[in-house]
């Protein structure tokens, strides 16, 4: 999952990015509205954490301009808690709203829910054959036994599981699973896929030669 964080507070931005990366997200940061809008328009993020009070283009305007082209899920972060501001945010196309100061756990939970919702997945647990994926605990079990996956392997499984039945291209995987700071080589993806197959069964991920990967819907 790749997320964008737009916040002009450097200390807050840095720790948010760190927390998100440690939670398995590919996270990009932007320190002002212009940069945020540019990145939001040029990548297909799974979600955007957007501060309202930004120098230059503020959060409202960024959201308004972004909505002309993209439907990316947006979680507004703001120190304004007046009901009018919340209503304005939700009416303006925000998908959720979190008032600063927030708890990190709440932020991560809301972000997960937001991404799940935008993938039209209401449940936090996904059953794929004999494999059970718990997206809130970030654990995978096979036939009731826990399976140890690395963070990269987990996000790859989760992304494919959220797009079950669809073929996900390699480009898309690179865009959504790795942030601008990752320097990955293309064959690394194949390494992750083969490791997952070893742990969850060879047929768990199907390769569509020339197109990409997919997890079959049943």
């Amino acid at each position, binding site marked *: 999952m790749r997320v964008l964080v737009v916040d002009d507070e450097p200390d807050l931005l840095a720790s948010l990015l760190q927390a998100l990366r*440690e939670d398995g997200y590919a996270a990009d940061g932007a320190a002002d509205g212009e940069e945020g809008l540019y990145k939001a328009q040029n990548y297909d993020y799974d979600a955007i954490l957007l501060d309202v009070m930004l120098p230059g283009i503020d959060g409202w305007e960024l959201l308004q301009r972004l909505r002309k082209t993209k439907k990316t899920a947006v979680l507004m972060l703001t120190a304004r808690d007046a009901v009018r501001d919340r209503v304005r945010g939700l009416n303006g196309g925000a998908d959720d709203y979190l008032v600063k100061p*927030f708890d990190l756990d709440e932020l991560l939970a809301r972000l997960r829910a937001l991404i799940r919702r935008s993938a039209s997945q209401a449940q936090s647990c996904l059953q794929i054959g004999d494999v059970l994926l718990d997206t809130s605990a970030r654990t995978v079990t096979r036939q009731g036994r826990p399976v140890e996956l690395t963070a990269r392997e987990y996000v790859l499984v989760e992304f494919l599981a959220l797009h079950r039945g669809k073929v996900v291209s390699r480009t898309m995987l690179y865009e959504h699973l790795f942030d601008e700071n990752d320097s990955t080589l293309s064959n690394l993806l194949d390494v992750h896929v083969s490791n997952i197959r070893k742990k969850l069964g060879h047929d768990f991920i199907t390769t569509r030669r020339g197109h990409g990967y997919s997890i079959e819907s049943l």
Partner: protein
Amino acid sequence: MIFNSIRWRLQLWHGLILVVVLSGFGLSAYHVARDNQQRRIDTELEHHLMALFRPLPPDQCPNRPPPGEHPETSRRPDPFDFSENLSQAIEQAGALDQTQTNTFYYLLWQSDGVLMASAPGSPVSVPFPTNPEPAGIQPHDPDSLDDGPPPHPRPPLPLIARTRNQAREIYLFGPHGDCVLVGRSMASDLAAMNRLALWLVAAGASVLLLGLAGGWWVATRAIRPIEDISATAIKIAAGDLSQRINAADAESELGRLATVLNSTFARLEAAFAHQARFTADASHELRTPVSVILTQTQTALARERSVAEYRNVLDACQRAAQRMRSLIESLLELARLDAGQEPMKQAPFDLAHVVRESIELLRPLATARGIQIQCACSPAPCIGDSERIGQVATNLLTNALQFNRAQGSVRVGVSAGNEFALLTVEDTGQGIPAEELPRIFERFYRVDKSRSRLQGHDGIGLAISKAIVDSHGGLIEVSSQFGAGSVFTVKLPTGKRSP
């Protein structure tokens, strides 16, 4: 209660006035019509009476003296001497009966009340009228007739009219107490009067209804602006301060009221917006460092970190805490200034001296940024709290240094005046766009939000400066040319009164 509404009260008064006017009009019309009718009937009856006993031409007069006698001296018959003319009168009345409708009737009595003659259609049992005049004052004393010809034409007859059982009758007493009565039934006339009365009532009622309907319409129209005003006021009371009264008709009394109310609402809204903005800004400024501390610590505590990482987190927390401290100090100071709790000394001091101290304090910052400070300070005595004024000077100078271009300059001027001492701080920075100038002294207002945030400005310094200068009874102003620099001017009272 609904009848307490202005519309209902207006309607009630309007209705009452209409009822009074209409009934007055109707009653007078009825009376005039009735009087006219009575007079007409009386004239008719009189006419008939006269016709009954009109003087006969001389050749037909039964008592006429033979020709050859002197007509002047002969006794002419008195036509109202019924006993003399009776047979003739009856004849004439018979003729009248033929020609007239039988609504008229006549009756003749002798002086002793014995009915001598009556028209065929006369009602029975018509009482013999009482003679109101004693014989002595009868206008036509028969004796006087002997002395000469009767005056001709005759003076008005003592006709007496009465109304009896829906009949109008006039009667006349002859010289010997004989009485003749002519009457007619008024049944048809009374019916006509009743019809008129009915018609008047109906017309009056319909005019009243029309008037009430019209009054209702007028009242509704007149009250609509008031209802607009109260509806808008209710919405505003419910919290929607953006509502305005539609004051299209600005010339009318209510239009003027609406205009005045609208401007009041606008000022209220501006005050509320200002307050709301301040609260939102303050909460934003206070919450942001708390968010930094929370996120930094929660992230750090999620797993084991290296010493360097912990140090970074602590550094960030310290920065956030320092920011909060300075912000809290500023806010508390501002609150005390607003409440007038901050004691201001009222001592004479030299403004130039205070400003020079501030410049010395900031010299290292100026040197670091390569900015020259030029000071043209002449002694300027004034009254106030020198420490507070020093704070203002330091704040203005800090801004002039921080928002200046590299290798720019700051010109500081202090001059004495009669009423006010003058401090000017002029920089060669970016300047302030004209549209931002009015808001520059507002709390948390920043022209360039990103730059000042990085420099640790909370956007409250100028607000504090203004509060300090205001509490001294002075003035702080700004003028700016965008791109060329800004000039801040502070005027402080010298304590001397202008002549």
